[in-house]
């Protein structure tokens, strides 16, 4: 090969790199290992993590322990889905492009929004992306976000807003853990580009979304709702309640916990925002012989064509995770999604009643609720010893709920699990169960 190139050594091929920047030693890393050794090393690391099968977990707060069916592992491991690049040559990517089209359809159905893209990274950055669309659309400078939004979503919005040249104002929750609608209406003005609410909100409260949308959209601001996709199985879709953009975290749709990623974000909107949406969009068309097919469409929005005027800088997104999402929704099916959501709803209600604790948000909830726990430290100590994880400590993000616990009930938490948690809660030091 060197002969064909016309050099005597591989070293000559690096001649353009000045000596002064050449690395004159080896990289300071151990030498390579065999597959077996790498496997054993990674397995040893994994063994030091207490995962969701090693404890009874009520931990939610944005990612949830739902059951992922075996067929998803099976399909996602196929080389044909796992190893190709973004479908720039549509003739040989009809599988991936049709998956995107089906995914877009499923998200549109769930959210009630007419158009969806083929995925963004995850939930909180999807919220930030909605802020960018609002900036491009309205040219206004203020963003208003309910404190009911996931803390990471509010944080991501703030971080991105610095680049957008926009400010973020937060609207408080009421004493019942729902967005304060009067405060929301008071916070918006002619310079508000978008208003953000979450459904259900971070505490698990089912918000009065239609009312919030009306109050928030008063001055021409876009109404953005971050929604939980499984809860949308039984909740009225944002698209039917005056919401302009619906985004959200897709982990609950057939994706792993994976210590926080990769999952996917979804981004759906009203038709009038189609040409301002971020990311890939698959469209249906015909080929030269009249056969039905799919292509990436409206690419002029994207960075590889529009460059500095692109609707977003996103390139690689979360295609494989979105595949898991649409397969999962198809596996659940039209009735199955409703059944699953109703099961969660009933178990969550039962759990809240069983625990008998002071509710931070006593109103309707679907999969998660917040309660006040006297001696939270004591509860965690007892629970850990029994390999139970009681949930998320709210005080970290909401100083006003210092003794607050966020408890998540998925379809994997049985009645038995709930009773166990109730017993642990009741077992306060010196107090009989």
């Amino acid at each position: 090969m060197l002969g064909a190139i016309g050099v005597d050594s591989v070293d000559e091929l690096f001649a353009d790199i000045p000596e002064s920047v050449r690395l004159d030693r080896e990289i300071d890393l151990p030498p390579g290992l065999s597959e077996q050794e790498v496997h054993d090393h990674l397995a040893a690391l994994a063994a030091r993590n207490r995962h969701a099968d090693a404890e009874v977990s009520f931990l939610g707060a944005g990612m949830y322990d739902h059951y992922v069916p075996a067929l998803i592992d099976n399909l996602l491991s196929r080389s044909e889905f796992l190893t190709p690049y973004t479908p720039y040559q549509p003739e040989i990517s009809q599988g991936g492009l049709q998956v995107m089209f089906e995914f877009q359809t499923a998200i549109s159905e769930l959210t009630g929004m007419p158009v969806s893209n083929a995925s963004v990274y995850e939930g909180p950055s999807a919220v930030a992306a909605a802020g960018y669309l609002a900036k491009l659309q309205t040219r206004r400078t203020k963003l208003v976000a309910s404190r009911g939004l996931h803390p990471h979503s509010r944080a991501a919005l703030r971080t991105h807003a610095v680049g957008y040249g926009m400010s973020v104002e937060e609207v408080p929750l009421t004493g019942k853990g729902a967005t304060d609608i009067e405060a929301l209406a008071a916070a918006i003005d002619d310079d508000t580009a978008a208003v953000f609410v979450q459904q259900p909100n971070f505490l698990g409260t089912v918000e009065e979304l239609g009312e919030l949308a009306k109050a928030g959209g008063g001055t021409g601001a876009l109404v953005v709702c971050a929604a939980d996709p499984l809860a949308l199985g039984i909740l009225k879709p944002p698209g039917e309640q005056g919401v302009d953009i619906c985004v959200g975290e897709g982990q609950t749709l057939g994706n792993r916990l994976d210590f926080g990623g990769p999952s996917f974000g979804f981004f759906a909107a009203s038709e009038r925002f189609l040409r301002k949406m971020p990311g890939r969009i698959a469209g249906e068309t015909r080929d030269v012989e009249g056969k039905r097919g799919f292509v990436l469409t409206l690419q002029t929005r994207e960075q590889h064509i529009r460059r500095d005027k692109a609707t977003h800088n996103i390139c690689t997104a979360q295609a494989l995770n979105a595949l898991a999402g649409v397969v999962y929704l198809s596996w659940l099916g039209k009735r199955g999604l409703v059944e699953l959501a109703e099961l969660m709803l009933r178990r969550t209600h039962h759990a809240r009643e069983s625990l008998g604790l002071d509710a931070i948000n006593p109103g309707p909830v679907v999969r998660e609720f917040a309660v006040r726990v006297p001696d939270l430290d004591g509860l965690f100590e007892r629970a850990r010893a029994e390999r139970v994880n009681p949930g998320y400590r709210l005080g970290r993000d909401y100083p006003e709920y210092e003794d607050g616990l966020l408890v998540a009930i998925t379809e994997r938490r049985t009645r038995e699990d709930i009773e166990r948690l109730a017993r642990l809660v009741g077992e306060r030091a010196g107090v009989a169960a």
Partner: protein
Amino acid sequence: MAEASYPEDLKYHAEHDWARIDGDQATFGITWYAQDALGEVVFFDPPEVGTQVSKDQAYAEVESVKAVSDVFAPLSGEIVEVNEALADSPENINADPYGDGWMVKVRLSDTSEVDALMDVAAYRELL
């Protein structure tokens, strides 16, 4: 339009736009060269009637599948009419760039600017 064509009665701008002068009004569009470079036009979103345009400034964008191009105003003035038909049939810009592919009609603010434009011979030389 399959063959390159540059009508004699038009004035041309270096950014491949044309102007048809009619007293104190002018019609603007893009030349055969521009539409050929773009490929099949799929989207044109005109500015609103009443918008002010300035000579040598971009006043709109035209899109094909794989490219976006600015459309430049050869002359300054106020937009009095836009070609609404292009919303449904943007391909008119390719098929008939000087006729059905017209983009906007402008009431000129300074007719002396016309002198700075090229005639067809000068534009042909530029290409």
